């Protein structure tokens, strides 16, 4: 089902006057979760910008009931909360983890991996702004090659960890990538995930004007360029079937992709590599490798009946 802007709920789902920086992708993403899933959602939030966006007691700047929790425990706390709701007979409540890239790919990884292995009935969303922003822009496992952070002053030397593929390998029912540049796609994926039981993982790309050094008016544009350059492919893995999402389909063909320099040059964090073709080439090779993986996954997890039968153990 394709989401149309006009059909989205009119209600004011964001929470104005929160503590997010102007142009914040996390504030955008939180609003879309509410638009997609409505009121029966509880968030579990480990430390990160979204802990701070909530503002100062007794008010909260995020329009959800929230359990704030330590880094290491977000997914396990969510699993426990879901079990408690089940005991209360409240099967209608979605327990959603909303965590940063550092909180997910590095510090919270063990509890997330455990929850995925147990196929706990939660939705796990990563707001991936590609660094530890709340503590002042330190590199994480999801920071891309070449990006400046305060702990990689000359640019990161390692590539971005491909977390969505790692989650597919956990054999959970639903894994998707999304972007704040394509809210319709994110909302559609959230609604789809909400209809599935078990561990569901959505990786939301969230370009951050503060940490990536771009003008706050450009958050959607930078997010869209990540998709158009092939740096951030949108796809979903739904109970044994892997599909590229419509917005990313054209970019399977490398000649349709926008040159990645167009994406890099908007961001101050890549300023020191922008004139270095050998560094740009490393990122181009990363994109090529990423799409080899996608090609392989498309072939392995295609919608044939046999594949469906074998792989949809959670369906």
């Amino acid at each position: 089902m394709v989401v149309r802007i006009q059909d989205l709920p009119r209600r004011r789902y964001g929470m104005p006057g929160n503590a997010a920086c102007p142009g914040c992708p996390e504030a955008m993403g939180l609003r879309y979760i509410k638009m997609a899933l409505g009121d029966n959602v509880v968030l579990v939030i480990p430390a990160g910008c979204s802990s701070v966006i909530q503002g100062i007691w007794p008010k909260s700047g995020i329009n959800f009931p929230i359990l704030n929790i330590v880094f290491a425990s977000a997914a396990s706390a969510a699993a426990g909360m879901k079990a408690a709701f089940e005991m209360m007979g409240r099967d209608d409540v979605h327990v959603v983890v909303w965590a940063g890239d550092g909180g997910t790919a590095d510090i919270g990884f063990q509890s997330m991996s455990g929850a995925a292995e147990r196929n706990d009935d939660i939705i796990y969303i990563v707001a991936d702004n590609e660094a530890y922003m709340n503590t002042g822009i330190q590199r994480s496992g999801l920071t891309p090659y070449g990006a400046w952070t305060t702990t990689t002053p000359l640019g990161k030397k390692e590539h971005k960890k491909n977390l969505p593929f790692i989650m597919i390998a956990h054999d959970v029912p639903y894994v998707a990538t999304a972007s704040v540049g394509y809210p319709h796609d994110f909302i559609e994926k959230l609604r789809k995930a909400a209809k599935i039981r078990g561990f569901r993982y959505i990786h939301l790309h969230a370009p951050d004007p503060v940490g990536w050094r771009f003008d706050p008016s450009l958050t959607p544009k930078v997010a869209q360029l990540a998709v158009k350059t092939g740096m951030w492919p949108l796809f979903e893995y739904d109970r044994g079937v892997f599909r590229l999402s419509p917005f990313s389909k054209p970019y399977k063909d490398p000649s349709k992709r926008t040159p990645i320099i167009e994406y890099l040059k908007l961001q101050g964090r890549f300023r020191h590599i922008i004139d270095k073709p050998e560094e740009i080439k490393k990122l181009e090779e990363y994109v090529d490798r990423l799409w080899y993986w996608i090609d392989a996954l498309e072939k392995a997890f295609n919608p044939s009946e046999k594949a469906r039968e074998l792989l949809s153990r959670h369906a």
Partner: protein
Amino acid sequence: MSVGKSARGPIVEAPVGFFAAPVSHPAPGAAGKTGTWRDYRPVINEEKCVKCLLCWLYCPEDTILRREDDMVYVDYEYCKGCGICASVCPVNAIEMVPERGGLE
């Protein structure tokens, strides 16, 4: 103490005083009147607007508001002036105008 049963086993009551945490409630202005953060204010030209609602969809603060007829307007009390609405408008109906200081 067990206070009931469920499919997963007995429901146990939490000991009194076991857990007490400060609770906040969602409300506008948890970080104050964020309209004062603005250097530029978005001004919508209703003549040009084609009601596509892209500004409404992308505004991180939810400070683009929708009238019944889908004409949009800005909540200047909380709009942070990021300029996203102006950057996504397909017909350039939103202009970012320098603030002269102070809220309206």
